[in-house]
Protein backbone atom coordinates (compact mmCIF):
# COMPACT_ATOMS: atom_id res chain seq x y z
CA UNK A 1 0.00 0.00 0.00
CA UNK A 2 1.16 3.57 -0.63
CA UNK A 3 2.74 5.08 2.47
CA UNK A 4 1.04 8.32 3.34
CA UNK A 5 2.70 11.10 5.26
CA UNK A 6 0.81 13.36 7.60
CA UNK A 7 0.92 16.26 5.24
CA UNK A 8 -0.83 14.16 2.61
CA UNK A 9 -3.72 13.52 4.91
CA UNK A 10 -6.58 15.73 4.03
CA UNK A 11 -10.11 15.02 5.05
CA UNK A 12 -12.69 15.35 2.29
CA UNK A 13 -16.33 14.47 1.81
CA UNK A 14 -16.54 12.14 -1.17
CA UNK A 15 -18.74 9.41 -2.66
CA UNK A 16 -17.58 5.80 -2.72
CA UNK A 17 -17.51 5.75 -6.51
CA UNK A 18 -15.26 8.82 -6.66
CA UNK A 19 -13.01 7.53 -3.87
CA UNK A 20 -12.48 4.31 -5.80
CA UNK A 21 -11.66 6.26 -8.95
CA UNK A 22 -9.18 8.49 -7.15
CA UNK A 23 -7.58 5.47 -5.50
CA UNK A 24 -7.06 3.93 -8.93
CA UNK A 25 -5.35 7.08 -10.19
CA UNK A 26 -3.12 7.21 -7.12
CA UNK A 27 -2.30 3.53 -7.52
CA UNK A 28 -0.90 4.29 -10.96
CA UNK A 29 -3.80 3.07 -13.06
CA UNK A 30 -3.25 4.48 -16.55
CA UNK A 31 -6.04 2.74 -18.43
CA UNK A 32 -9.77 2.66 -17.86
CA UNK A 33 -12.46 1.29 -20.15
CA UNK A 34 -16.09 1.12 -19.11
CA UNK A 35 -19.68 1.21 -20.20
CA UNK A 36 -22.38 3.23 -18.44
CA UNK A 37 -24.55 1.40 -15.93
CA UNK A 38 -26.22 2.59 -12.75
CA UNK A 39 -25.25 2.69 -9.85
CA UNK A 40 -21.58 3.18 -10.80
CA UNK A 41 -21.81 5.97 -13.39
CA UNK A 42 -20.04 8.49 -11.13
CA UNK A 43 -16.96 6.28 -11.24
CA UNK A 44 -16.89 6.20 -15.04
CA UNK A 45 -17.36 9.97 -15.19
CA UNK A 46 -14.66 10.50 -12.56
CA UNK A 47 -12.20 8.34 -14.50
CA UNK A 48 -13.00 10.24 -17.68
CA UNK A 49 -11.97 13.49 -16.00
CA UNK A 50 -8.98 12.21 -14.05
CA UNK A 51 -7.48 10.17 -16.90
CA UNK A 52 -7.43 13.26 -19.10
CA UNK A 53 -5.78 15.22 -16.25
CA UNK A 54 -3.12 12.59 -15.61
CA UNK A 55 -2.31 11.60 -19.19
CA UNK A 56 -3.90 8.16 -18.92
CA UNK A 57 -6.40 6.56 -21.25
CA UNK A 58 -10.14 6.60 -20.80
CA UNK A 59 -12.36 4.78 -23.27
CA UNK A 60 -16.13 4.60 -23.17
CA UNK A 61 -16.40 1.19 -24.77
CA UNK A 62 -19.20 -0.01 -27.02
CA UNK A 63 -20.05 -2.79 -24.58
CA UNK A 64 -18.97 -4.46 -21.36
CA UNK A 65 -17.40 -7.19 -23.48
CA UNK A 66 -15.29 -4.66 -25.34
CA UNK A 67 -14.40 -2.84 -22.11
CA UNK A 68 -13.00 -5.92 -20.37
CA UNK A 69 -11.15 -6.94 -23.52
CA UNK A 70 -9.62 -3.46 -23.84
CA UNK A 71 -8.47 -3.90 -20.25
CA UNK A 72 -7.06 -7.27 -21.32
CA UNK A 73 -5.05 -5.57 -24.07
CA UNK A 74 -3.81 -2.72 -21.86
CA UNK A 75 -2.81 -5.20 -19.16
CA UNK A 76 -1.09 -7.44 -21.72
CA UNK A 77 0.96 -4.40 -22.71
CA UNK A 78 1.96 -3.88 -19.10
CA UNK A 79 -0.33 -1.08 -17.89
CA UNK A 80 -2.26 -0.98 -14.64
CA UNK A 81 -5.76 -1.25 -16.05
CA UNK A 82 -9.29 -1.36 -14.69
CA UNK A 83 -12.94 -1.44 -15.57
CA UNK A 84 -16.04 -1.00 -13.48
CA UNK A 85 -19.66 -1.94 -13.79
CA UNK A 86 -22.67 -3.22 -11.92
CA UNK A 87 -24.16 -6.70 -11.80
CA UNK A 88 -25.67 -7.20 -15.31
CA UNK A 89 -22.54 -5.65 -16.81
CA UNK A 90 -20.29 -7.84 -14.70
CA UNK A 91 -22.07 -10.90 -16.10
CA UNK A 92 -21.00 -9.74 -19.57
CA UNK A 93 -17.42 -9.27 -18.42
CA UNK A 94 -17.08 -12.85 -17.23
CA UNK A 95 -15.68 -14.04 -20.57
CA UNK A 96 -12.85 -11.54 -20.31
CA UNK A 97 -12.21 -12.25 -16.62
CA UNK A 98 -11.79 -15.96 -17.39
CA UNK A 99 -9.28 -15.10 -20.15
CA UNK A 100 -7.41 -12.71 -17.84
CA UNK A 101 -6.98 -15.50 -15.30
CA UNK A 102 -6.03 -18.04 -17.98
CA UNK A 103 -3.43 -15.67 -19.41
CA UNK A 104 -2.28 -14.59 -15.92
CA UNK A 105 -2.94 -10.92 -16.53
CA UNK A 106 -3.52 -8.47 -13.69
CA UNK A 107 -6.58 -6.22 -13.75
CA UNK A 108 -8.97 -4.56 -11.32
CA UNK A 109 -12.72 -4.95 -11.82
CA UNK A 110 -15.12 -2.94 -9.68
CA UNK A 111 -18.64 -4.32 -9.22
CA UNK A 112 -21.10 -1.97 -7.55
CA UNK A 113 -23.77 -4.60 -7.15
CA UNK A 114 -27.43 -3.97 -7.90
CA UNK A 115 -30.43 -6.20 -7.42
CA UNK A 116 -31.15 -9.02 -9.86
CA UNK A 117 -31.67 -11.49 -11.36
CA UNK A 118 -31.94 -10.23 -14.93
CA UNK A 119 -32.28 -6.49 -15.22
CA UNK A 120 -33.58 -6.39 -11.63
CA UNK A 121 -33.31 -2.78 -10.62
CA UNK A 122 -30.74 -0.28 -9.44
CA UNK A 123 -31.20 -0.79 -5.70
CA UNK A 124 -28.23 -2.12 -3.71
CA UNK A 125 -27.81 -5.87 -3.22
CA UNK A 126 -25.23 -8.57 -2.60
CA UNK A 127 -26.57 -11.12 -5.05
CA UNK A 128 -23.26 -11.53 -6.89
CA UNK A 129 -21.35 -13.19 -4.02
CA UNK A 130 -21.36 -16.62 -5.67
CA UNK A 131 -20.35 -15.15 -9.03
CA UNK A 132 -17.48 -13.16 -7.51
CA UNK A 133 -16.09 -15.81 -5.18
CA UNK A 134 -16.48 -18.91 -7.35
CA UNK A 135 -14.73 -17.60 -10.42
CA UNK A 136 -17.78 -16.38 -12.29
CA UNK A 137 -16.81 -17.35 -15.80
CA UNK A 138 -15.91 -20.69 -17.37
CA UNK A 139 -13.03 -22.78 -16.12
CA UNK A 140 -11.41 -23.61 -12.82
CA UNK A 141 -10.31 -20.36 -11.26
CA UNK A 142 -10.63 -17.74 -8.55
CA UNK A 143 -10.36 -14.00 -8.39
CA UNK A 144 -9.36 -12.12 -5.27
CA UNK A 145 -12.49 -10.36 -3.95
CA UNK A 146 -12.20 -7.31 -1.70
CA UNK A 147 -15.34 -6.04 0.05
CA UNK A 148 -15.05 -2.59 1.65
CA UNK A 149 -17.74 -1.30 4.01
CA UNK A 150 -16.87 2.40 4.02
CA UNK A 151 -15.69 5.04 1.61
CA UNK A 152 -12.36 5.20 3.43
CA UNK A 153 -11.87 1.46 3.15
CA UNK A 154 -12.98 1.46 -0.49
CA UNK A 155 -10.18 3.92 -1.23
CA UNK A 156 -7.58 1.83 0.57
CA UNK A 157 -8.71 -1.53 -0.80
CA UNK A 158 -8.80 -0.20 -4.34
CA UNK A 159 -5.11 0.68 -4.07
CA UNK A 160 -4.43 -2.73 -2.54
CA UNK A 161 -6.38 -4.32 -5.42
CA UNK A 162 -3.85 -3.04 -7.98
CA UNK A 163 -0.92 -4.25 -5.87
CA UNK A 164 -2.42 -7.72 -5.40
CA UNK A 165 -3.34 -7.98 -9.09
CA UNK A 166 0.24 -7.26 -10.10
CA UNK A 167 1.74 -9.42 -7.36
CA UNK A 168 -0.23 -12.51 -8.34
CA UNK A 169 -0.87 -11.70 -12.01
CA UNK A 170 -4.56 -12.32 -11.45
CA UNK A 171 -7.66 -10.12 -11.68
CA UNK A 172 -8.97 -8.63 -8.44
CA UNK A 173 -12.60 -7.72 -7.89
CA UNK A 174 -13.60 -4.83 -5.69
CA UNK A 175 -17.10 -5.80 -4.62
CA UNK A 176 -19.35 -3.06 -3.32
CA UNK A 177 -22.99 -2.25 -3.78
CA UNK A 178 -25.03 0.72 -4.86
CA UNK A 179 -25.06 2.15 -1.34
CA UNK A 180 -21.28 2.20 -1.02
CA UNK A 181 -20.91 3.75 -4.46
CA UNK A 182 -23.46 6.50 -3.89
CA UNK A 183 -22.96 7.45 -0.25
CA UNK A 184 -20.74 10.34 0.79
CA UNK A 185 -18.47 10.00 3.77
CA UNK A 186 -15.54 11.90 5.16
CA UNK A 187 -12.31 10.34 4.01
CA UNK A 188 -8.77 10.96 5.13
CA UNK A 189 -5.77 10.22 3.00
CA UNK A 190 -7.12 11.72 -0.16
CA UNK A 191 -4.42 13.68 -1.87
CA UNK A 192 -5.98 16.37 -3.99
CA UNK A 193 -2.92 16.57 -6.16
CA UNK A 194 -2.10 13.35 -7.94
CA UNK A 195 1.46 12.49 -7.06
CA UNK A 196 2.26 10.74 -10.29
CA UNK A 197 2.85 7.62 -8.24
CA UNK A 198 3.61 4.59 -10.34
CA UNK A 199 4.35 1.18 -8.98
CA UNK A 200 7.65 0.07 -10.36
CA UNK A 201 6.61 -3.53 -10.85
CA UNK A 202 8.64 -4.99 -13.67
CA UNK A 203 6.54 -6.85 -16.19
CA UNK A 204 9.02 -8.75 -18.34
CA UNK A 205 6.17 -10.91 -19.65
CA UNK A 206 4.27 -8.00 -21.24
CA UNK A 207 3.86 -7.66 -25.01
CA UNK A 208 5.68 -4.41 -25.76
CA UNK A 209 7.64 -5.36 -28.88
CA UNK A 210 10.51 -7.88 -28.76
CA UNK A 211 13.35 -5.36 -28.76
CA UNK A 212 16.56 -7.00 -27.55
CA UNK A 213 14.71 -10.00 -26.15
CA UNK A 214 12.89 -13.14 -27.25
CA UNK A 215 9.25 -12.60 -28.28
CA UNK A 216 6.61 -12.74 -25.53
CA UNK A 217 3.40 -14.69 -26.04
CA UNK A 218 0.30 -14.25 -23.90
CA UNK A 219 -1.98 -17.24 -24.09
CA UNK A 220 -4.42 -19.42 -22.20
CA UNK A 221 -4.57 -22.07 -24.94
CA UNK A 222 -2.50 -25.19 -24.41
CA UNK A 223 -3.27 -27.97 -26.85
CA UNK A 224 -0.59 -30.53 -26.11
CA UNK A 225 -1.64 -33.36 -23.87
CA UNK A 226 -0.98 -32.63 -20.23
CA UNK A 227 0.22 -29.06 -20.75
CA UNK A 228 -3.11 -27.47 -19.86
CA UNK A 229 -3.29 -29.64 -16.75
CA UNK A 230 0.16 -28.38 -15.74
CA UNK A 231 -0.97 -24.80 -16.40
CA UNK A 232 -4.01 -25.38 -14.18
CA UNK A 233 -1.86 -26.87 -11.45
CA UNK A 234 0.31 -23.76 -11.58
CA UNK A 235 -2.80 -21.57 -11.22
CA UNK A 236 -4.02 -23.70 -8.32
CA UNK A 237 -0.67 -23.34 -6.54
CA UNK A 238 -1.03 -19.59 -6.94
CA UNK A 239 -4.56 -19.68 -5.52
CA UNK A 240 -3.31 -21.76 -2.58
CA UNK A 241 -0.61 -19.13 -1.97
CA UNK A 242 -3.25 -16.38 -2.01
CA UNK A 243 -5.39 -18.37 0.45
CA UNK A 244 -2.40 -18.64 2.73
CA UNK A 245 -1.31 -14.99 2.60
CA UNK A 246 -4.16 -12.68 1.72
CA UNK A 247 -7.06 -13.41 4.06
CA UNK A 248 -8.36 -10.23 5.66
CA UNK A 249 -11.21 -9.74 8.11
CA UNK A 250 -12.33 -7.64 11.04
CA UNK A 251 -13.37 -9.07 14.37
CA UNK A 252 -15.45 -7.15 16.87
CA UNK A 253 -16.54 -8.21 20.38
CA UNK A 254 -16.18 -11.89 19.58
CA UNK A 255 -14.34 -12.94 22.76
CA UNK A 256 -17.27 -13.03 25.14
CA UNK A 257 -19.97 -13.20 22.46
CA UNK A 258 -22.53 -15.99 22.39
CA UNK A 259 -23.82 -15.02 18.98
CA UNK A 260 -21.52 -13.93 16.19
CA UNK A 261 -22.93 -11.92 13.32
CA UNK A 262 -21.14 -12.56 10.03
CA UNK A 263 -21.63 -9.82 7.45
CA UNK A 264 -19.65 -7.89 4.84
CA UNK A 265 -19.98 -4.64 2.94
CA UNK A 266 -22.87 -2.25 3.48
CA UNK A 267 -24.90 -4.57 5.70
CA UNK A 268 -21.93 -5.04 8.03
CA UNK A 269 -22.30 -1.36 8.96
CA UNK A 270 -25.83 -2.11 10.12
CA UNK A 271 -24.51 -5.11 12.02
CA UNK A 272 -21.91 -2.95 13.79
CA UNK A 273 -24.75 -0.83 15.14
CA UNK A 274 -26.69 -3.98 16.05
CA UNK A 275 -23.76 -5.29 18.11
CA UNK A 276 -23.74 -2.10 20.18
CA UNK A 277 -27.53 -2.02 20.64
CA UNK A 278 -27.72 -5.69 21.57
CA UNK A 279 -24.94 -5.30 24.11
CA UNK A 280 -26.75 -2.38 25.73
CA UNK A 281 -29.65 -4.82 26.16
CA UNK A 282 -27.25 -7.31 27.72
CA UNK A 283 -27.10 -9.72 24.76
CA UNK A 284 -23.54 -10.72 24.04
CA UNK A 285 -23.19 -10.28 20.29
CA UNK A 286 -20.01 -10.08 18.25
CA UNK A 287 -19.18 -9.53 14.60
CA UNK A 288 -16.90 -11.14 12.07
CA UNK A 289 -16.60 -9.07 8.93
CA UNK A 290 -14.80 -10.73 6.02
CA UNK A 291 -12.87 -8.10 4.05
CA UNK A 292 -11.60 -10.65 1.52
CA UNK A 293 -14.57 -12.73 0.36
CA UNK A 294 -12.13 -14.89 -1.55
CA UNK A 295 -9.98 -16.01 0.07
CA UNK A 296 -12.69 -16.40 2.70
CA UNK A 297 -11.60 -16.23 6.36
CA UNK A 298 -12.57 -19.84 7.11
CA UNK A 299 -10.00 -20.01 9.91
CA UNK A 300 -11.53 -17.45 12.25
CA UNK A 301 -15.06 -18.81 11.81
CA UNK A 302 -13.74 -22.32 12.46
CA UNK A 303 -11.88 -21.17 15.56
CA UNK A 304 -15.01 -19.49 16.94
CA UNK A 305 -17.07 -22.58 16.09
CA UNK A 306 -14.65 -24.61 18.23
CA UNK A 307 -15.63 -22.32 21.10
CA UNK A 308 -19.30 -23.33 20.57
CA UNK A 309 -20.32 -19.88 19.34
CA UNK A 310 -23.52 -19.50 17.36
CA UNK A 311 -23.45 -17.69 14.02
CA UNK A 312 -26.04 -15.46 12.43
CA UNK A 313 -25.15 -14.64 8.83
CA UNK A 314 -26.65 -11.39 7.56
CA UNK A 315 -26.66 -10.65 3.83
CA UNK A 316 -28.43 -8.54 1.23
CA UNK A 317 -29.34 -11.73 -0.63
CA UNK A 318 -30.97 -15.05 0.19
CA UNK A 319 -27.97 -16.87 1.60
CA UNK A 320 -24.74 -16.99 -0.39
CA UNK A 321 -21.88 -16.27 2.03
CA UNK A 322 -23.97 -18.44 4.35
CA UNK A 323 -22.56 -21.47 2.55
CA UNK A 324 -18.97 -20.43 3.31
CA UNK A 325 -19.81 -19.85 6.97
CA UNK A 326 -21.39 -23.32 7.16
CA UNK A 327 -18.31 -24.83 5.50
CA UNK A 328 -16.09 -23.01 7.98
CA UNK A 329 -18.15 -23.98 11.04
CA UNK A 330 -18.01 -27.66 10.04
CA UNK A 331 -21.18 -28.36 11.99
CA UNK A 332 -19.50 -27.43 15.27
CA UNK A 333 -21.39 -24.18 15.74
CA UNK A 334 -25.04 -23.55 14.91
CA UNK A 335 -25.43 -21.32 11.83
CA UNK A 336 -28.58 -19.32 11.11
CA UNK A 337 -29.32 -16.79 8.42
CA UNK A 338 -31.25 -13.61 7.84
CA UNK A 339 -31.18 -11.85 4.55
CA UNK A 340 -33.18 -9.68 2.22
CA UNK A 341 -32.65 -9.47 -1.53
CA UNK A 342 -34.11 -7.61 -4.48
CA UNK A 343 -33.03 -4.29 -3.00
CA UNK A 344 -34.31 -5.03 0.52
CA UNK A 345 -31.87 -4.12 3.30
CA UNK A 346 -31.95 -5.99 6.62
CA UNK A 347 -32.94 -3.48 9.31
CA UNK A 348 -31.46 -3.21 12.81
CA UNK A 349 -34.72 -4.22 14.51
CA UNK A 350 -35.14 -7.21 12.20
CA UNK A 351 -31.64 -8.44 13.02
CA UNK A 352 -32.09 -7.87 16.76
CA UNK A 353 -35.35 -9.86 16.60
CA UNK A 354 -33.48 -12.72 14.90
CA UNK A 355 -30.80 -12.58 17.59
CA UNK A 356 -33.43 -12.68 20.34
CA UNK A 357 -35.11 -15.70 18.75
CA UNK A 358 -31.84 -17.59 18.22
Amino acid at each position, binding site marked *: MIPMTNKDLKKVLITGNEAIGEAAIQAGCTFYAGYPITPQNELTAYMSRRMSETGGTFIQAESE*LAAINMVFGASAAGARAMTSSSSPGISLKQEGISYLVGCELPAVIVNMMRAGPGLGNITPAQGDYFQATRGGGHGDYRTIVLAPNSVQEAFELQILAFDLADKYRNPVILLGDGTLGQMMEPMAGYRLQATGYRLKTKKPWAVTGC*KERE*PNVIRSLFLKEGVLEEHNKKLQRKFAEIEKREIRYEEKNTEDAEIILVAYGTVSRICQAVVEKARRKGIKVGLVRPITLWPFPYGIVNKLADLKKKFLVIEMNYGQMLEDVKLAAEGKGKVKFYGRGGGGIPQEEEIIKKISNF
Partner: protein
Amino acid sequence: MSNKKNNKQKIKSLRDVRMHYCPGCGHTIAHRLICEVIDELGIREKVIGVAPVGCAVIAYDYWNFDVTEAAHGRPPAVATGIKRVERDKIVFTYQGDGDLASIGTAEIIHCANRGENISVFFINNAIYGMTGGQMAPTTLIGQKTATTLTGRDIKRDGYPLKVCELLALLPGTRYIERVALSSAENIRQAKRAMKKAFQTQIENKGFSLVEILSPCPTNWRLSPAEAMKWIDEKMTSYFPLGVVKDD
Protein backbone atom coordinates in the same frame (compact mmCIF):
# COMPACT_ATOMS: atom_id res chain seq x y z
CA MET B 1 4.99 -25.58 -44.89
CA SER B 2 8.39 -24.91 -43.47
CA ASN B 3 10.19 -21.63 -43.44
CA LYS B 4 13.41 -23.20 -44.68
CA LYS B 5 12.16 -25.12 -47.67
CA ASN B 6 12.64 -23.40 -51.00
CA ASN B 7 13.56 -20.26 -49.19
CA LYS B 8 17.16 -19.16 -49.35
CA GLN B 9 16.52 -15.92 -47.53
CA LYS B 10 15.24 -16.60 -44.03
CA ILE B 11 12.26 -14.59 -42.86
CA LYS B 12 13.09 -13.39 -39.37
CA SER B 13 9.50 -12.76 -38.35
CA LEU B 14 8.49 -16.32 -39.21
CA ARG B 15 9.54 -19.16 -36.93
CA ASP B 16 11.28 -22.10 -38.52
CA VAL B 17 8.61 -24.64 -37.57
CA ARG B 18 6.13 -26.82 -39.38
CA MET B 19 2.62 -25.33 -39.59
CA HIS B 20 -0.48 -27.36 -38.75
CA TYR B 21 -2.61 -26.05 -41.60
CA CYS B 22 -4.23 -28.33 -44.20
CA PRO B 23 -2.64 -28.64 -47.66
CA GLY B 24 -3.67 -25.67 -49.79
CA CYS B 25 -4.82 -23.54 -46.85
CA GLY B 26 -4.50 -19.79 -47.29
CA HIS B 27 -3.33 -19.14 -43.74
CA THR B 28 0.19 -20.34 -44.55
CA ILE B 29 0.45 -17.80 -47.36
CA ALA B 30 -1.12 -14.98 -45.35
CA HIS B 31 1.12 -15.66 -42.32
CA ARG B 32 4.19 -15.61 -44.51
CA LEU B 33 3.21 -12.44 -46.36
CA ILE B 34 2.66 -10.57 -43.10
CA CYS B 35 6.06 -11.73 -41.83
CA GLU B 36 7.80 -10.73 -45.06
CA VAL B 37 6.25 -7.28 -44.86
CA ILE B 38 7.24 -6.87 -41.21
CA ASP B 39 10.81 -7.81 -42.09
CA GLU B 40 10.90 -5.49 -45.07
CA LEU B 41 9.60 -2.58 -43.01
CA GLY B 42 12.10 -3.38 -40.24
CA ILE B 43 9.42 -3.27 -37.55
CA ARG B 44 9.66 -6.77 -36.04
CA GLU B 45 10.81 -5.46 -32.67
CA LYS B 46 7.94 -2.96 -32.57
CA VAL B 47 5.14 -5.26 -33.67
CA ILE B 48 2.48 -6.62 -31.32
CA GLY B 49 0.11 -9.10 -32.96
CA VAL B 50 -3.31 -10.21 -31.75
CA ALA B 51 -4.18 -13.79 -32.67
CA PRO B 52 -7.77 -14.90 -33.27
CA VAL B 53 -9.89 -17.89 -32.32
CA GLY B 54 -10.28 -20.13 -35.34
CA CYS B 55 -7.83 -22.13 -37.44
CA ALA B 56 -5.14 -19.47 -36.87
CA VAL B 57 -5.54 -19.64 -33.09
CA ILE B 58 -1.91 -20.69 -32.60
CA ALA B 59 -0.49 -18.14 -35.04
CA TYR B 60 1.88 -17.16 -32.21
CA ASP B 61 3.62 -20.50 -32.63
CA TYR B 62 4.60 -19.39 -36.14
CA TRP B 63 5.21 -15.67 -35.71
CA ASN B 64 8.50 -14.59 -34.25
CA PHE B 65 7.43 -11.38 -32.50
CA ASP B 66 5.22 -10.41 -29.54
CA VAL B 67 1.70 -11.84 -29.79
CA THR B 68 -1.26 -12.13 -27.47
CA GLU B 69 -4.32 -14.28 -27.82
CA ALA B 70 -7.80 -12.78 -27.64
CA ALA B 71 -11.24 -14.21 -27.02
CA HIS B 72 -13.32 -15.00 -30.13
CA GLY B 73 -14.24 -11.75 -31.88
CA ARG B 74 -12.46 -9.48 -29.39
CA PRO B 75 -9.12 -8.77 -31.10
CA PRO B 76 -10.11 -5.20 -32.06
CA ALA B 77 -10.88 -4.41 -28.40
CA VAL B 78 -7.67 -6.07 -27.22
CA ALA B 79 -5.67 -4.24 -29.91
CA THR B 80 -7.29 -0.97 -28.82
CA GLY B 81 -6.08 -1.54 -25.27
CA ILE B 82 -2.56 -2.38 -26.44
CA LYS B 83 -2.24 0.51 -28.88
CA ARG B 84 -3.52 3.12 -26.43
CA VAL B 85 -0.87 2.00 -23.94
CA GLU B 86 1.97 1.41 -26.43
CA ARG B 87 1.35 4.20 -28.91
CA ASP B 88 4.67 3.95 -30.73
CA LYS B 89 4.28 0.21 -31.38
CA ILE B 90 2.75 -1.41 -34.46
CA VAL B 91 -0.37 -3.33 -33.49
CA PHE B 92 -2.31 -5.62 -35.78
CA THR B 93 -5.09 -8.18 -35.51
CA TYR B 94 -5.42 -11.30 -37.62
CA GLN B 95 -9.03 -12.47 -37.74
CA GLY B 96 -11.15 -14.94 -39.62
CA ASP B 97 -14.66 -14.36 -40.91
CA GLY B 98 -16.40 -15.94 -37.93
CA ASP B 99 -14.22 -13.95 -35.54
CA LEU B 100 -14.46 -10.57 -37.24
CA ALA B 101 -17.72 -10.62 -39.16
CA SER B 102 -19.96 -12.62 -36.83
CA ILE B 103 -19.20 -12.79 -33.12
CA GLY B 104 -16.98 -9.70 -33.23
CA THR B 105 -19.03 -7.33 -35.39
CA ALA B 106 -19.56 -4.84 -32.57
CA GLU B 107 -15.85 -4.77 -31.73
CA ILE B 108 -14.66 -4.28 -35.34
CA ILE B 109 -17.23 -1.61 -36.17
CA HIS B 110 -16.52 0.47 -33.07
CA CYS B 111 -12.77 0.00 -33.30
CA ALA B 112 -12.90 1.23 -36.90
CA ASN B 113 -15.31 4.01 -36.00
CA ARG B 114 -13.01 5.26 -33.24
CA GLY B 115 -10.33 5.39 -35.90
CA GLU B 116 -7.95 3.29 -33.82
CA ASN B 117 -4.51 3.46 -35.41
CA ILE B 118 -4.18 -0.30 -35.92
CA SER B 119 -4.06 -2.67 -38.90
CA VAL B 120 -6.51 -5.52 -39.37
CA PHE B 121 -5.91 -8.58 -41.55
CA PHE B 122 -9.23 -10.21 -42.21
CA ILE B 123 -9.14 -13.74 -43.61
CA ASN B 124 -12.36 -14.44 -45.52
CA ASN B 125 -12.66 -18.08 -46.56
CA ALA B 126 -16.46 -18.11 -46.52
CA ILE B 127 -16.62 -20.90 -43.96
CA TYR B 128 -15.88 -21.94 -40.36
CA GLY B 129 -12.75 -24.01 -40.71
CA MET B 130 -11.74 -25.15 -37.25
CA THR B 131 -15.21 -26.24 -36.13
CA GLY B 132 -15.77 -28.33 -39.24
CA GLY B 133 -17.17 -26.32 -42.11
CA GLN B 134 -20.26 -24.51 -40.83
CA MET B 135 -21.81 -21.43 -42.47
CA ALA B 136 -19.85 -18.24 -42.00
CA PRO B 137 -21.27 -14.70 -42.22
CA THR B 138 -19.44 -14.55 -45.56
CA THR B 139 -20.65 -17.91 -46.92
CA LEU B 140 -21.87 -17.32 -50.46
CA ILE B 141 -25.53 -17.61 -51.44
CA GLY B 142 -26.19 -21.23 -52.35
CA GLN B 143 -22.89 -22.44 -50.84
CA LYS B 144 -23.21 -25.80 -49.11
CA THR B 145 -21.80 -26.08 -45.61
CA ALA B 146 -22.29 -28.34 -42.59
CA THR B 147 -25.13 -26.08 -41.43
CA THR B 148 -26.52 -25.13 -44.86
CA LEU B 149 -26.84 -28.58 -46.35
CA THR B 150 -28.90 -27.40 -49.31
CA GLY B 151 -26.91 -24.23 -49.73
CA ARG B 152 -27.12 -20.80 -48.07
CA ASP B 153 -30.70 -19.59 -48.43
CA ILE B 154 -31.09 -15.83 -48.09
CA LYS B 155 -34.61 -16.24 -46.70
CA ARG B 156 -33.32 -18.41 -43.90
CA ASP B 157 -29.68 -17.36 -43.52
CA GLY B 158 -29.50 -13.79 -44.77
CA TYR B 159 -26.83 -12.38 -47.05
CA PRO B 160 -23.03 -12.71 -47.05
CA LEU B 161 -21.61 -9.74 -45.17
CA LYS B 162 -19.47 -7.29 -47.11
CA VAL B 163 -17.13 -6.08 -44.40
CA CYS B 164 -14.96 -3.75 -46.50
CA GLU B 165 -17.91 -1.88 -47.97
CA LEU B 166 -19.54 -1.65 -44.53
CA LEU B 167 -16.46 -0.27 -42.79
CA ALA B 168 -15.64 2.09 -45.67
CA LEU B 169 -18.77 4.04 -44.71
CA LEU B 170 -17.23 4.94 -41.38
CA PRO B 171 -15.29 8.23 -41.28
CA GLY B 172 -12.81 6.67 -38.84
CA THR B 173 -11.35 4.30 -41.46
CA ARG B 174 -8.42 5.32 -43.69
CA TYR B 175 -7.38 2.44 -45.88
CA ILE B 176 -9.42 -0.61 -46.86
CA GLU B 177 -8.61 -3.07 -49.62
CA ARG B 178 -9.82 -6.53 -50.62
CA VAL B 179 -7.28 -8.93 -52.04
CA ALA B 180 -7.15 -12.67 -52.84
CA LEU B 181 -4.59 -15.44 -52.53
CA SER B 182 -5.72 -17.16 -55.71
CA SER B 183 -2.75 -16.54 -58.03
CA ALA B 184 0.84 -15.38 -57.95
CA GLU B 185 -0.24 -11.99 -59.18
CA ASN B 186 -3.00 -11.69 -56.59
CA ILE B 187 -0.62 -12.80 -53.84
CA ARG B 188 1.84 -10.08 -54.83
CA GLN B 189 -1.01 -7.56 -54.64
CA ALA B 190 -2.04 -8.94 -51.25
CA LYS B 191 1.48 -8.29 -49.98
CA ARG B 192 1.44 -4.73 -51.34
CA ALA B 193 -1.87 -4.14 -49.54
CA MET B 194 -0.53 -5.51 -46.26
CA LYS B 195 2.49 -3.24 -46.53
CA LYS B 196 0.27 -0.26 -47.18
CA ALA B 197 -1.88 -1.15 -44.16
CA PHE B 198 1.18 -1.15 -41.91
CA GLN B 199 2.45 2.06 -43.50
CA THR B 200 -0.91 3.72 -42.85
CA GLN B 201 -0.41 2.90 -39.18
CA ILE B 202 3.27 3.86 -39.11
CA GLU B 203 2.34 7.25 -40.55
CA ASN B 204 -0.32 7.62 -37.80
CA LYS B 205 -3.08 7.98 -40.37
CA GLY B 206 -5.47 5.64 -38.58
CA PHE B 207 -7.44 2.46 -39.11
CA SER B 208 -6.54 0.12 -41.96
CA LEU B 209 -8.03 -3.23 -42.99
CA VAL B 210 -7.11 -5.76 -45.66
CA GLU B 211 -9.69 -8.42 -46.43
CA ILE B 212 -8.00 -11.50 -47.83
CA LEU B 213 -10.05 -14.00 -49.84
CA SER B 214 -8.41 -17.21 -48.78
CA PRO B 215 -8.81 -20.85 -49.86
CA CYS B 216 -10.11 -23.58 -47.56
CA PRO B 217 -9.91 -26.70 -49.77
CA THR B 218 -10.72 -29.07 -46.90
CA ASN B 219 -14.06 -27.56 -46.00
CA TRP B 220 -14.92 -26.49 -49.53
CA ARG B 221 -14.42 -30.17 -50.52
CA LEU B 222 -12.13 -29.09 -53.38
CA SER B 223 -8.54 -29.76 -54.35
CA PRO B 224 -6.10 -26.92 -53.61
CA ALA B 225 -6.01 -26.00 -57.31
CA GLU B 226 -9.82 -26.10 -57.59
CA ALA B 227 -10.08 -23.96 -54.47
CA MET B 228 -7.96 -21.23 -56.06
CA LYS B 229 -10.21 -21.33 -59.08
CA TRP B 230 -13.31 -21.15 -56.86
CA ILE B 231 -12.03 -17.88 -55.35
CA ASP B 232 -11.64 -16.32 -58.81
CA GLU B 233 -14.86 -17.72 -60.22
CA LYS B 234 -17.26 -17.51 -57.28
CA MET B 235 -15.96 -15.36 -54.46
CA THR B 236 -14.68 -12.33 -56.35
CA SER B 237 -17.99 -11.74 -58.07
CA TYR B 238 -19.67 -11.15 -54.71
CA PHE B 239 -16.55 -9.79 -52.99
CA PRO B 240 -14.87 -7.66 -55.68
CA LEU B 241 -11.13 -7.16 -55.36
CA GLY B 242 -9.51 -3.77 -55.13
CA VAL B 243 -9.09 -0.68 -53.00
CA VAL B 244 -12.38 0.14 -51.30
CA LYS B 245 -11.12 3.20 -49.50
CA ASP B 246 -7.86 5.14 -49.47
CA ASP B 247 -8.08 8.50 -47.74
